């Protein structure tokens, strides 16, 4: 491949990877923004989303009223609802009782929820890789000599439109306004008559649903699922959220795309190579947390918790 083709190929890979990271990062960012919790279980929600959609597709037999695409869209919507409700349930059982507890207890609880989720899936799936068959072909179009399948193109479009819908939801609706208000001052919102518990539950619903959609997309893209697949992407999505400025919605998307591009171009640097890919991303995370913890779009805050 020529230099130009490598650039195009990596640009495309980076965008695709970045949109997955961005979708998962949104959930981290929203939850962090609203209750200041680093939700370790979020990455496992992404994984559960992948498996949930796989079972749904199997249940539909790959189609919905005889149409492959319709089947996938239906599976995605139902997955988003189911997993969104799972997120609400987790918040209700595990996080709400501890909302005023010390930070350390809350973090450990989140870790416990994460362990429960991935081990439950491990027990159910027998710890094996599950093939993700969709019946979508490899037809597509070419950019130069770079082949892009329709599936890949549609994944990017879907991810971007989900982010756009979320952006409208946050900026244009009363619920979105309430979320932004709570992230500024929870107690004050309660005094002003905002139903804080409901809005927090809604945040978990939206965040989990987005992560679930990303999980399904990852299944379609990579063609297989594994119970531990959330772990690495969880750290990377968190990195994306931090790069963009945690708690800032457009920041999470920007961070995701940036990290995706950095990673796909980073692996082209002779010294790094694909086996050092994760080390590269984790180092970026550590460096950013140390030198610019507020991220690119984040507000300055001197508060320590």
């Amino acid at each position, binding site marked *: 491949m020529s230099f130009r083709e490598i650039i195009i190929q990596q640009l495309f890979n980076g965008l695709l990877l970045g949109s997955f990271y961005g979708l998962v990062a949104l959930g981290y960012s929203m939850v962090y923004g609203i209750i200041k919790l680093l939700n370790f279980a979020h990455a496992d929600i992404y994984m559960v989303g992948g498996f949930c959609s796989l079972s749904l597709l199997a249940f539909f037999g790959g189609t919905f009223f005889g149409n492959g695409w319709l089947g996938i869209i239906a599976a995605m919507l139902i997955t988003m609802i189911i997993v969104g409700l799972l997120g609400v349930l987790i918040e209700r059982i595990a996080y709400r009782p501890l909302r005023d*507890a010390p930070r350390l207890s809350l973090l450990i609880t989140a870790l416990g929820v994460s362990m429960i989720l991935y081990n439950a899936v491990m027990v159910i799936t027998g710890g094996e890789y599950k093939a993700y068959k969709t019946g979508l072909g490899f037809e597509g179009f070419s950019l130069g000599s770079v082949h892009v399948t329709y599936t890949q193109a549609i994944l990017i479009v879907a991810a971007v439109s989900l982010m756009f819908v979320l952006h409208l939801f946050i900026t244009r609706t009363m619920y979105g306004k309430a979320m932004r208000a709570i992230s500024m001052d929870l107690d004050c919102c309660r005094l002003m008559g905002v139903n804080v518990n409901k809005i927090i539950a809604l945040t978990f619903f939206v965040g989990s649903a987005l992560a679930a959609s990303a999980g399904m997309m990852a299944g379609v893209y990579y063609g297989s699922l594994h119970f531990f697949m959330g772990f690495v992407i969880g750290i990377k999505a968190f990195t994306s959220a931090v790069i963009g400025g945690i708690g800032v919605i457009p920041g999470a998307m920007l961070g995701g795309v940036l990290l995706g591009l950095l990673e796909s171009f980073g692996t082209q640097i002779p010294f790094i190579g694909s086996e050092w890919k*994760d080390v590269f991303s984790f*180092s970026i995370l550590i460096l950013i*947390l*140390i030198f610019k913890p507020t991220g690119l779009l984040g507000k300055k805050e001197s508060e320590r918790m």
Partner: protein
Amino acid sequence: MKEKQTAAARTAIKRDNPLAGLINRLYIIFDNKKIRYSVLAIAVAVLLYLPMITSLYFMEVMTNVWFNVTVCLGLNIIVGFAGLLSLGYAAFFAVGAYTTGILISHYGVSFWLTLPVSVLMAIIAGLAIGAPTLKLRSDYLAIVTLGFGEIIRLAARNLQITGRATGLVGIDRPVLFGMTLYKINHFYYAFLLVAILAIFVSYRLQDSRLGRAWKCIREDEDAAEAMGINVFVIGSVFGAVAGSFMAVKMTAISPESFLFTQSVMILLAVVLGGMGKIPGVILGAFAIVVFPEVFRGIGEYRMLIFGLLLLVLMIYRPQGLWPERHT
């Protein structure tokens, strides 16, 4: 946290249930130095005598217990004493294990000489993670330590000197006064010794000026900036020494021995027993080793049950089974 615990302690006394009364009486008995030391002496004597009467399997389990006691006490310095959540503790005993493994199998150094090197490497690793992270919030710190743990493991997987994915095999057994240590009983005594040393050092640290300073970090994180570094340095030394001994006991180490789940298990032990309380942490280490052995049937459900335990514990008893008493 402090307020909650004192409240819990107060209700325990107020409720006046027979168990709480019994425990209180035990505390009073143990306040007597003579009684305390004689009980300790008997316990140590029993532990020393154990290998003479029990099976090899039991010794294997007990050796594992002492290993876990050591690493848990190391993590307890970071999480319990200073209240800094660390999710990459396995990295520290990876540092110890690999230092010993590389020195023995590549350079033929005696095991006992690798120990100081291993401690030195642990200090460097502790500084590397401790120094830049002082100003971080607790949740950022958690994710940095997690990333650090993964970087160490992935580096071990990718580097030539650490044997890549297969790791190091055939590490020579240590020789002590002309006797090669190879039986499980030898390692039982070695790990028991290390664990007793760890317990002793933990108590001395807890009562020292440094230990009190760490408590201040826990209660008020602003103090962390001044004291945070040495928490990681000392905590990592415990892990590295245990890791060095582990390397020669197993004679083989691979990156898979230092997974994230390993770090989480150690954290669970510390949380289960009661963060910051040394006997509690020992109890926790004992529990995480013995529980899966007793309930062999649970097999793959093990981590699931531990996850549930962590959740229930945090909601209903955040101070752990044997919490610190605030007076």
